[in-house]
């Protein structure tokens, strides 16, 4: 089926980076979220979940990351990609960092259903994923690269940077201007961006899209049995979303 025209993203991905660099600077709101345990009580706190949400978050935790520092870098990067704004929560508030952590601990992280036999060679631009690194390795690699880059440029860890400083590094990753081992930084950025959107909008059973807030912002009703009685209506339907978990309970 033809679905490629959805979004303008695919080949423009690299082309539009120049614009991204210019327009993203100055993320006032987000700057305030930087650092450990900032904004207590705010839904956008990535770390120390247990301290803030004792009851709600008992089923949530780190399955992949062992170092809080790495997780915090991931969290801040996803928040820059999908920031909190007047429409609603950003990546952190939506639980995206946990979503990614949990995914990295499973089949996604180990590329279990993908062809990972060698020999490995650097592929052409049209040959897709060719690194020998699994996604789990790739994320660790990328996170450490971001941190090193932050230290090099600003003498601070990535998670302690100002928003526009983070954006500078993310933009250079996207433009493939930062060297990474075993993979191009543009490739890592693409993966990070996709994973962020997946966490924002996947069914909440995967620990992102907290409280279906991602769907609510977007006007997506999640799992509905049927639209046969509405699909002929001219008017737009605002429907309370439902998770697929409602089919099991």
């Amino acid at each position, binding site marked *: 089926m033809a679905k490629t*025209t959805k*979004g303008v993203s695919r080949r*423009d991905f690299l082309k539009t980076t120049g614009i*991204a660099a210019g327009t993203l600077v100055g993320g006032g709101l987000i700057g305030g979220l930087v650092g450990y345990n900032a904004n207590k009580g705010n839904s956008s706190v990535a770390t120390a979940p247990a301290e803030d949400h004792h009851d709600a978050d008992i089923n949530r935790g780190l399955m992949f990351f062992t170092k809080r520092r790495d997780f915090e870098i991931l969290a801040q990067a996803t928040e820059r*990609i999908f920031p909190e*704004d007047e429409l609603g929560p950003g990546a952190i508030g939506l639980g995206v960092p946990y979503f990614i952590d949990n995914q990295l601990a499973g089949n996604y992280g180990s590329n279990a259903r993908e062809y990972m036999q060698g020999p490995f*060679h650097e592929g052409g631009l049209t040959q897709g994923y060719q690194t020998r690194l699994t996604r789990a390795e790739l994320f660790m690699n990328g996170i450490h690269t971001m941190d090193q880059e932050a230290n090099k440029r600003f003498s601070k860890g990535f998670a302690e940077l100002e928003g526009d400083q983070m954006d500078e590094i993310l933009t250079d990753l996207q433009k493939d201007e930062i060297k990474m081992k075993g993979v191009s930084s543009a490739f890592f950025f693409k993966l990070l961006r996709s994973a962020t959107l997946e966490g924002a909008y996947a069914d909440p059973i995967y620990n992102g899209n907290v409280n279906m807030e991602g769907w609510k912002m977007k006007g997506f009703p999640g799992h509905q049995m049927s639209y046969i009685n509405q699909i002929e209506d001219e008017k*737009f*339907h605002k429907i309370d979303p439902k998770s697929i978990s409602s089919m099991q309970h």
Partner: protein
Amino acid sequence: MAKTLDKVDVVTVGVGWTGGIIAAECAKAGMKVRGLERGQNRGTEDFSLVHDEYRYAIRYELMQDLSKETITFRNNMKQRALPMRQLGSFLLGEGLGGAGTHWNGMTYRFLPYDFQIKSETEKKYGKNKVSSDYLLQDWGITYDELEPYYDRFEKTMGLSGEDTNPFWGKRSSDFPTPPMKKTPLLQKFEKAAKDLGYHPYMVPSANLSQPYENPDGSQINACQYCGFCERFGCEYGAKASPEVTVIPAAKKTGNYDIIFNANVVEVLKKGNKTTGVRYIDTQTGEEVIQPADVVVLTSYMMNNAKLLMVSNIGEQYDPATGKGTLGKNYCYQIEPGATGFFDEQMNTFMGAGALGMTIDDFNADNFDHTDLDFIHGASISFVQSGSRPIGTNPVPSDVPLWGAEFKKASIENFTRTLDVFGQGASIPHKHNYLSLDPTYKDKYGVPLLQMTYNFTEQDRNLHKFITKKTVEVMEKMGAKKTEGGGPLAEYDIAPYQSTHNTGGTTMGNDPQNSVVNTYLQHWDMENLFVVGAGNFNHNSGYNPTATVGALAYRTAEGIQKYRQKGGSLV
């Protein structure tokens, strides 16, 4: 030592649409049929938790496990072919029903012109319209000859549609069920197309407009427009798929069974006949031989070609000399399109896989190509298949792809964007072909199939032409801002484009330029049949499965004839 099973009359490799149709028809005719399927059993009752975009549409739950087998790919012969490590450009099926479980169900018959493309083009535009680098070829069969089989396949599915398209070939009967609902969004497209003087019609849909019992007694339910259709199984049994139609029909006869976890690795032969197949039981690792009087390859066009190659049946195509037929004429599809941004919110998340409208005014030779630098064309459609939030993040091209502005724009436009797209024909080129990879192997030690493919000059010219048309339609639909897709670049294996891969085991009436005859019987091996879109000599401006299914029905008839008389069917 391999274990040897009792002989059956007919064995199919794979149980999707093609394997299911062969099974139903041969079993009804009294033959003992066995399906060997490397995936798992599944059906309607397994799809109650399927409304999960991440698992099914993004992580490809129902599709091929590439850790076991994939293909390798390169754009041209100078490049090193590398494995397709993740699914992307196309989504291979696996398990009962194959890709027919998670298809959209847009079910178009090809146009009469398609089957005689070479002679028609030469007749109308002369011998030099197309350079000899393009391996244009007639199919050895006409639309009228194939019509009865299209008719049977449509009746098996209960296809929903309306016979109002002036460009179609003659139909022997009307659609079995009326068209789907013409929603306000479809009407927007219809009106725009009509205003421009075109001829819109409802997409023939295998998501059924009403409940239907097919001639085999299988029941298909009414579509609920649930919006989780393509890439998903249908929890209502409302999408015509092999599991709800031909497979139960085959089982009902008592002449059919399926062995799952059976990965076929070789077609066995003795002299100029096949004796059966060898497979690996993927749970035990054991080798098993399944003897059969007739072997039918129904394992999708890629594996059909690969199995012939690894079994040394037929002559591999060589692009340097032009000799050999196996692997030749690999074609794909191009997808020019336009995105329209609107002010008002629309119910874009409601839909069904084949809920749409199409025009054929720029498809095939329905318009004059005298002054154009390409042949054939594209269907142009608007389809309301149900947008989902991970996959659909439309932003105008001047918006960055992440950050505050992206978030705002992608959220705003989720319910305010529509797409008009073309499915463009793909004309075979001498440098686009399939072969065996010299380096990479599947889990069972068998070489991977190698694909050498890039878009051609013809593709680029057609793409440009159709993009313009889609922009015009979208503007007429009232978008406040319309953006046409950029020019066609190199073919890229990573982003999803279409699972409309064709060629490699082409059909025809001359063994010099085809792999199988018009009953899809192998030219070199009379009891071996090869069924799928691999038989296409080029790809048309539509989805392929109506034609694949029609050819499968014709093959089943051929197998019955062969069982009675033996020898070549042509």
